[in-house]
């Protein structure tokens, strides 16, 4: 069990590293075929739970393939992830985990790159709520909900968080 928890933590950290490196294929390879990804937030302004983004694995792969056709802010994102809880089901085939995540934007473009490039700014604060399947000791993400505290998103992003 302890070993399985360590494996799940490792999957979460590997996902963070893949995302930090814009290694989309690497990220998706950690995900089950049924993978569903969401970015959500609660807005006290409109008193509603909101979904800012929702895609399955195929849709995500499409979208990420399409990125070179879109104009995107060039500043890389860096995640600081801490796994808070991991719970493995009794059967040992499923698990869920909650992590805290803080995302920094390392400015490349900024507003004026002459001034801003090289600076790191707090970009987003939230939690990862993940679920996993475990098959023959291999851990795969089945769902990830990136639940943000932010409703001010300025330029937003074309990247999964």
């Amino acid at each position, binding site marked *: 069990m302890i070993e399985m928890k360590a494996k799940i933590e490792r999957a979460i950290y590997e996902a963070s590293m893949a995302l930090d490196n814009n290694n989309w294929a690497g990220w998706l390879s950690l995900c089950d075929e049924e993978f569903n990804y969401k970015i959500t937030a609660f807005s006290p302004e409109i008193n*509603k739970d909101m979904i*800012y*983004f*929702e895609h399955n694995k195929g849709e995500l792969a499409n979208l990420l393939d399409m990125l070179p056709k879109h104009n995107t802010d060039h500043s890389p994102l860096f995640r600081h992830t801490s796994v808070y809880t991991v719970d493995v089901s009794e059967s040992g085939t499923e698990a869920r985990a909650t992590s805290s995540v803080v995302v920094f934007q390392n400015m490349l473009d900024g507003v004026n790159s002459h001034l801003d490039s090289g600076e790191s700014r707090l970009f987003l604060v939230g939690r990862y709520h993940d679920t996993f399947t475990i098959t023959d000791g291999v851990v795969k993400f089945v769902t990830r909900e990136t639940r943000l505290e932010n409703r001010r998103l300025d330029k*937003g992003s074309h990247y999964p968080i």
Partner: protein
Amino acid sequence: MPARNHKQWTANPPLKDGEWINSRIYSDPEIAQEENEKIFKNMWVPVCHESELPAPYDFRTTSIANENIIICRGPDNEVRAFLNVCPHRGMLIERRPSGSFMEGQASGNPKRITCMFHAWQFDMKGNCVYVAREKEGYQDRLCKEQVGLRRLRCEVKFGGFVWINLNDNPSVSLEDWAGEPFECLRKTLDEEPLEVFHYHKAIIDTNYKLWHDTNSEFYHDFMHYHNRVTGFNDAYFARKNEAFDHGHVVVGTFEVNYENYEGFESRADLSFPHLPPNQWYMVDLFPGFNFNLRGSALRCDTVTPLGPDKVLIEFRGLGLKSDSPEDRMTRIKHHNSIWGPFGRNLHEDLIGVAGQGTTMRPDTEPRRILHGRQENQTIHDENGMRHYYEEWGRWMDRSPIAPDMPFSDRDDGSQVVNAE
């Protein structure tokens, strides 16, 4: 033309007056302050949607031109607006963005708007109903009847948006001001109640007018891969840009081919009432409010200028209140795919105006901004912006090409002044 020297660069372009403007109107702190006084304090502003305060005693707070505002729904279901300022010593009465006065607050009672500072209380009509130790302190010199809140003009209209005007005597009624541009969507928006499902905000280092320009010009579809592949066809290039009184513009509809973008789907099944499938209407209201209906979802942007080079933009997404959970989910997905903070187009639009904001920040050298495309008032014609800046010139009594000169109309709508 080869690259130009300073004299060539700052010379007037070979276009008619009105087909270009002076970038100083995007940069000058004095002009920005004057816009708040002359325009925003006299304008109908869509501050929120009625579904954000669905029940009696619900409230929302906002601000227009630096004035703090509270909007609440009374037990009679009427939505009213007041300055969010205590008549006693000027405390901000309600500090949260939203909530319900059904809950009592630390200093006051349920069903009251309470100022936490010295516990004065107001009802949902803005009457002062309680002054702590009133007689002891004011004897007969001042009583609660004399210290009500400042009420504001407030109407719920055009699809349930809450419109406020800080001027008690607006130069034109809300209906006369925006009725005509909304005519194309009136039946669609008023057939049944709408509901907000999306809210987020951006604070961008740019001038608010640049955001509105981007919302009203479609030439920038060259920046959006999505719009190029789903749009560029004969029907798209025939879309009309129609100007209305008071500086408004409506971009006419056409049928969007969403399937042309890998992974996107038609929105035909969830069209808003009375609309043929996959239509796309855009209503741009002077000086910075945008209603954008892409078949299955409505988006509304409102700007709050924070200076010459800073603007708060609030983004809302709306569906039908009667939506089933599945339909709502589909609408949200359609909305997010292009307009969400992680969607295809919004990010590009915001990068665009931020870049303009960078080159036009205060103390940069004024230069010429071209609004001179003439294409028979179709989609890439820049008549929307030309129309907007004429209205701007009237409100400000400043020429958009020479901001120190007064604005003057000529018969052909262009201006007689020369550049500075």
